[in-house]
């Protein structure tokens, strides 16, 4: 199978080059504005978590800044609560896009007992909700890929149609054995699963050329009997087009797809990292040009979906919303100590 570098829109509803891109893709103005607000909302939560870490109220922060367009673009292609999403630690924006709230994320970041992801057991970055079919993960890089494959295998066993699993990982995970095993099984069985690589060029500090032996992760797909697609991961519409095509292909029995979203990690790996040790001052200065929120805001203003004043108002509303969520999360008391022993085994 050859690698596809186009993002064919053939399966999407409208194909009229005279229309703005979102309309071509069948997305309404409201959907675009909701995504823009959501991306800004998750960026505010990201900012807030770094502040809380400095205050000693959030002990670990892992950023999704720079990855928002990829995660929101994919979320448009996922029916939350129906399709399964198997995320990794960088996917805070995805969790929000699929239906979690700033309060959910802050409770998770502050390790509160009402954290819906883990009840305060997992460090931040392990998003989970059975109701939304967001699958709980560990911190072992790449080990979750095979869970998405197993979910897809389950659909094959039960004979369920029109459902798919989608999993997310960085380019660093593609070195892992479990990634290879998952890709192999998905390819052999042609399972309804979509693999999304959020390639930000770094495995913490190790640059892509020291961890991935080929220029494009998407080319690896050829070895697993599935198409590989490359998209600009800062372009929400390009990501949606690719994800929608891949999900529809999976749901209709067409097999798996690997999508590589090329993007930039705008911040250090985590609050325990200093990326100035391994990124040049020039590279760091240039990061601002790759902010997917700026890109979508400019698009929305250009196409008259909102104006500069409305954007200011929206930002203020979001800040107030995140402030309120922070206060609410901070007030949640610690769990009873004996709860340490809860949920070890089922009944």
């Amino acid at each position, binding site marked *: 199978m050859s690698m596809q570098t186009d993002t064919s829109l053939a399966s999407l509803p409208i194909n009229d080059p005279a229309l703005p891109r979102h309309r071509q893709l069948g997305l309404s103005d409201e959907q675009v504005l909701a995504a823009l607000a959501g991306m800004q909302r998750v960026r505010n939560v990201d900012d807030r978590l770094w502040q809380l870490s400095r205050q000693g109220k959030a002990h670990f922060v892992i950023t999704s800044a720079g990855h928002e367009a990829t995660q929101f673009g994919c979320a448009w292609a996922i029916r939350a609560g129906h399709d399964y999403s198997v995320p990794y630690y960088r996917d805070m924006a995805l969790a929000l896009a699929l239906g979690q709230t700033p309060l959910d994320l802050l409770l998770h970041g502050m390790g509160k007992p009402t954290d819906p992801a*883990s009840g305060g057991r997992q460090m931040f970055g392990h998003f989970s909700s059975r109701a939304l079919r967001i699958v709980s993960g560990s911190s072992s890089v790449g080990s979750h890929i*095979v869970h998405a*494959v197993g*979910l897809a*295998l389950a659909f094959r066993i039960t004979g369920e149609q029109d459902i798919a699993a989608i999993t997310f990982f960085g380019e660093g995970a593609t070195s892992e054995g479990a990634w290879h095993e998952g890709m192999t099984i998905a390819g052999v069985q042609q399972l309804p699963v979509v693999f999304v690589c959020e390639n930000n060029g770094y495995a913490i500090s190790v640059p892509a050329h020291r961890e991935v032996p080929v220029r494009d992760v998407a080319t690896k797909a050829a070895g697993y009997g599935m198409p590989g697609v490359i998209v600009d991961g800062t372009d929400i519409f390009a990501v949606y087009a690719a994800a929608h095509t891949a999900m529809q292909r999976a749901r209709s029995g067409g097999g798996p797809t690997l999508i590589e979203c090329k993007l930039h990690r705008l911040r250090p790996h985590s609050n325990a990292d200093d990326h100035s040790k391994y990124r040049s001052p020039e590279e760091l200065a240039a990061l601002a040009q790759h902010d997917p929120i700026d890109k979508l805001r400019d698009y929305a203003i250009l196409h008259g979906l909102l104006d500069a004043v409305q954007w200011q108002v929206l930002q203020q509303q979001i800040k107030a919303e995140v402030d309120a969520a922070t206060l609410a999360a901070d007030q949640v008391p610690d769990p009873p100590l004996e709860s340490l022993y*809860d949920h070890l085994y*089922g009944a």
Partner: protein
Amino acid sequence: MPELTFLEAIRSALRDEMTADQRVFVLGQDVGVKGGVFLVTDGLYQQFGEHRAIDMPIAEAGIVGAAIGAALHGLRPVAEIQFADYIQPAVDQIINEAAKLRYRSAGDWSCPIVVRAPFGSGIHGALYHSQSTEALFTSTPGLKVVIPATPYDAKGLLIAAIRDPDPVVFFEHKQLYRTIRGEVPDGRYTVPLGTAAVRRTGRQISVFTYGLMLHHSLTAAEQVAQEGIDVEVVDLRTLYPLDRETILASVRKTSKALIVHEDNLTGGIGGEISALIGEYAFEYLDAPVRRLASPDVPATAFNEALEAHFMLNPTKIAHALRELAAY
């Protein structure tokens, strides 16, 4: 009641559960068309089809990981690792994923999978077809580790493991597959996980053991009985969590304990049982707790003489019993 081999009892459990419950399926290397390298799953492919007896690539992490994923959607996968020696690539999936899913999601998710693996030496399997790897898993909260010794238990414990809401690692001693026969009821029944069984009652020494070593221990107990040494033999059946009550009740009665396992001495479950007895039954003891285990070398050798020297047998166990009786 029909007499089945140990292997036939396991197959009977799989077939009965797969017949009764559409959610149950098997996956692993060679488990489909071939029916497994030991033929445990023989006939399941023909009866249930390729989607419920799934031949998988040589990818242990993928096999267990796929089982986990399927369990998340409500299925009841039974994954086979061809030899316990090859469970290592799947350890991350078993310990970091399956065992922690319920806990790490505060009960939102659960992971009801069974991972079956033949273990143990005595079939000329040398270093990589005869290891006892159960100790890798007997310090993992969230997991259950089950090792049957009789055909009746093999079926009942496997059905209980499949129905259990949490992940179970189920080790089958490969030398038992065709050498042990026993009465096994038709139809579905369970033997509860987490409970040991007293296989022989006695007053002077308690033996704690499992798997093939249960049979060797029973033979040894008969040998020394003729010399007036009265031995109780306890089949642990579940190694994690241990049935502490049965262990402590037995040793409080007999006052002497011998732990017998094929796993290596250091780090084997014998150390944990010994510590348990030391902490909670010290004042009942008339002798130091004794462990009889395989020597601390990687596994049995291919050379027949070395293999025989490595293996525990009834003679070695009887010798240890006599020493303990004389203490």
